[in-house]
């Protein structure tokens, strides 16, 4: 039966063809042409990508097949190896999100002595009190007052930043950069000075704090 000469398998990109063993190339060629030219039972709609595993035929025969497919408006390619376990990105389950992309959300005030360590970013709905510490691989966002020690981009990401409604930390660290609160500023004065959201990031080799809107 002619149906057994050509076998078709759906792949991520199109159809992969394989052929019954011991069938000569001319016979396969005529079979393909007849399939392409017949109206009934033609699986090869235009634009389909057809592939044949590498090494099935010698190079010149592959080239002939490519020409035939191209004439009928199909794309032809040589597949390098068997595709196993095709994992489509949309099929990934949520827990397969890499650690670095996860965000930790803290729903309370961080008090003295408490510490948050995360590979990814950290968001705090509350204050970060003096003596508390956040060490994050990503960014740090504090919806409250930051008085503790914050280290964003702890694994070397210089593009990381720290945002807080009221940014008066003891220390800010971003990647390898370091900055501490000025010694000569009165804490009460500091309270008044930055009563708006601010963002700390690295610019020209130093930590810069600038007001933001949000």
């Amino acid at each position, binding site marked *: 039966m002619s149906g057994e000469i050509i076998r078709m398998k759906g792949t991520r990109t199109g159809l992969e063809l394989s052929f019954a063993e011991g069938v000569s190339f001319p016979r396969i060629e005529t079979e393909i042409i007849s399939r392409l030219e017949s109206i009934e039972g033609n699986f090869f709609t235009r634009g389909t990508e057809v592939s044949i595993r590498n090494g099935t035929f010698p190079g010149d025969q592959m080239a002939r097949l490519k020409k035939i497919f191209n004439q009928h408006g199909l794309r032809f390619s040589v597949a390098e190896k068997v595709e196993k376990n095709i994992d489509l990105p949309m099929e990934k389950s949520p827990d397969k999100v890499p650690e670095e992309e996860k965000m930790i959300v803290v729903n*309370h*005030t*961080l*008090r*003295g*002595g*408490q510490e948050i360590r995360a590979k990814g970013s950290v968001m705090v709905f509350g*204050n970060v*009190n*003096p*003596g*508390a510490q956040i060490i994050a691989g990503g960014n740090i966002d504090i919806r409250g*007052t930051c*008085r503790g020690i914050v280290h964003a981009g702890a694994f070397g990401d210089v593009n990381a930043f720290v945002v807080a409604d009221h940014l008066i930390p003891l220390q800010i660290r971003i990647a390898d950069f370091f900055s501490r609160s000025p010694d000569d500023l009165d804490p*009460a004065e500091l*309270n008044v000075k930055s009563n708006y959201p601010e963002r700390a990031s690295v610019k020209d080799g130093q930590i810069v704090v600038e007001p933001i809107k949000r």
Partner: protein
Amino acid sequence: MCEVMVVTSGKGGVGKTTTTANIGVGLAMRGKRVAVIDTDTGLRNLDLLLGLENRIMYDLVDVTSGRVAYKKALVRHKKFETLYLLPTSQVRDKSAVKPEQLVELVTEMRNEFDYILIDCPAGLEQGFQTAIAAADVALVVTTPEISSVRDADKIIGELGRADKETIKLIVNRIRPMMVEKGDMLNMDDINEILSLECIGQIPDDEAVVTATNRGEPVITIDSSMAGRAYRNIVARICGEAVPFMTFPREGFLARLRRLFGM
């Protein structure tokens, strides 16, 4: 319904024991059945403040180790008959009482009392963990000093970790003059860091020292400002809405007198 309150602070010397003694006496003055438990094993002081040192027969360690029933160890206050003290051992250390032992004891005592006050030792170690284990409510005592507020913050974090959700704040040893001049943290500064419901603001008062030495808590002294502040705390614990007292500014004459050392 019995309410179990632990009085804690983190930092030493801010007035935990004084607060425990005064609130205990204050509640007893209102006719409530009160037990105060000292958990500062090895460094007990609560008995001194209540003037009951010479009446102690057994202690907390005797009770938790099963040697005597807790009722035998209770010391009744000489003046306020509904107030009982459960003192702790002066010779053992904090490891002598385990958290689960105290929980068991307090569960047993709940039926007999309206309020159980637990005086917590300073620090974060086992003594603290034991003291808070049985409590429904934590009263955190702090003074308007940065170190004391910092420690209170840390303690509040620890209480949160131990699932103690009801935490109230008492600020002790306020010196109104210094606050006014901006030399001492004011209530706003403290609230900003601790953000807790405050149930007491106690002024610094020499009467506390003399009362402590006599073994009669300051709450019994009508004329004392600190005594009044403690009475207000007790009222708030009993569910009354009492406004915070305003501290009278030092009058011109008094200032003049002080100036000349009179």
